[in-house]
């Protein structure tokens, strides 16, 4: 069947992210990659899963990606409102999962995370999620038996739609709507 949200989130954890180590760590020769040597206070790039482990153990701070800021997200939110039939391509593939994971694990490293008010990052992300979700649902109502074009959706958003959209398109195909 389709991937579950937790599985999509797991896949997102291979995304590289910048950290500021607080402790030394030698390089680790793993199967999919060899991690860099961590020498505080030099920044390093590691996969997100490792960053999350180290952060939890208080052995690093995480540098939020540049798109994870109130300035960028509010700009994208405005674009989404101004363009009712497209999705912004400015968001990374795993934007939804990454914002959830990073806000949960490292909100103290993200300056806009605890601002409160309408420029609060969490508030903006929620609004962004809702406007895109509403557009996606409208898109679903236009399903034909051939294809539905919705560029710019993130992996989680696509996964959310995949099961239903696939079945409807198949149903239409069987009825001869191609």
């Amino acid at each position: 069947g389709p991937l579950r949200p937790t599985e999509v989130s797991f896949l997102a954890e291979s995304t590289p992210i910048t950290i500021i180590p607080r402790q030394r760590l030698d390089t680790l020769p793993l199967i999919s990659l060899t991690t860099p040597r961590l020498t505080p206070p030099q920044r390093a790039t590691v996969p997100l899963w490792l960053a999350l482990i180290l952060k939890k153990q208080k052995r690093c701070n995480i540098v939020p990606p540049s798109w994870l800021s109130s300035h960028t997200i509010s700009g994208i939110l405005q674009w989404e409102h101004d363009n009712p039939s497209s999705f912004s391509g400015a968001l990374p593939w795993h934007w939804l999962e990454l914002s959830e994971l990073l806000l949960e694990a490292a909100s103290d490293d993200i300056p806009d995370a605890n601002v409160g008010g309408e420029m609060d990052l969490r508030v903006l992300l929620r609004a962004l999620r809702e406007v895109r979700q509403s557009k996606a649902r409208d898109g679903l109502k236009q399903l034909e038996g051939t294809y539905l074009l919705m560029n710019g959706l993130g992996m989680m958003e696509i996964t959310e739609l995949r099961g239903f959209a696939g079945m409807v398109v198949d149903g239409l195909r069987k009825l001869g709507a191609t």
Partner: protein
Amino acid sequence: MSYYSPDALLTDAQRLPCTFENAVQGLGFLDPSSTSSTIPAGTTLQLPLWLAEMLAVSQRMGTPNNVLSLDNPPALSSRVLNALKADPKTVELRQLATHFYALGERVLGLWDEPELEEVLIQTYKARTAEIADLAHNPQGAIGGEAGVFLRGLDEDERQLFRVAHESAKMMKQFMTERSTKN
């Protein structure tokens, strides 16, 4: 449809009205109200799709006549089609046939019926849009109009609803488990 799919088998079991063009010996048992072993010419019976299709395709040896002729099932009558054209969401498809669309597909495979095809497509589109809405906002979906609609879904639609609802549920879970975990 796949050979072993339960939905395909159940679809096959749905019935079509059949009229025997000629008398046929030995098939009398098909008519529960008859005591004879011969079916007289002109008899109309409701036979399951798989049997009806087989008999309709076969010809009596030495004659150009087909053994029987098929007619539209009541579930796809013009009365139903008109109701669907008026408001597809108010018709309880499940009451007409559990595998309504599948039945429609089979009938479309037997005859050319552009009107039936168009009505089915528009019906499917309108109803699946409603199913998507209900799956994401199931407020009071048990009672009221929404409840009637959901109970009237045919089998394909019911599976669609299940899929949409499951994915909405899992997303909601994912988005909230962060705040409750700590």
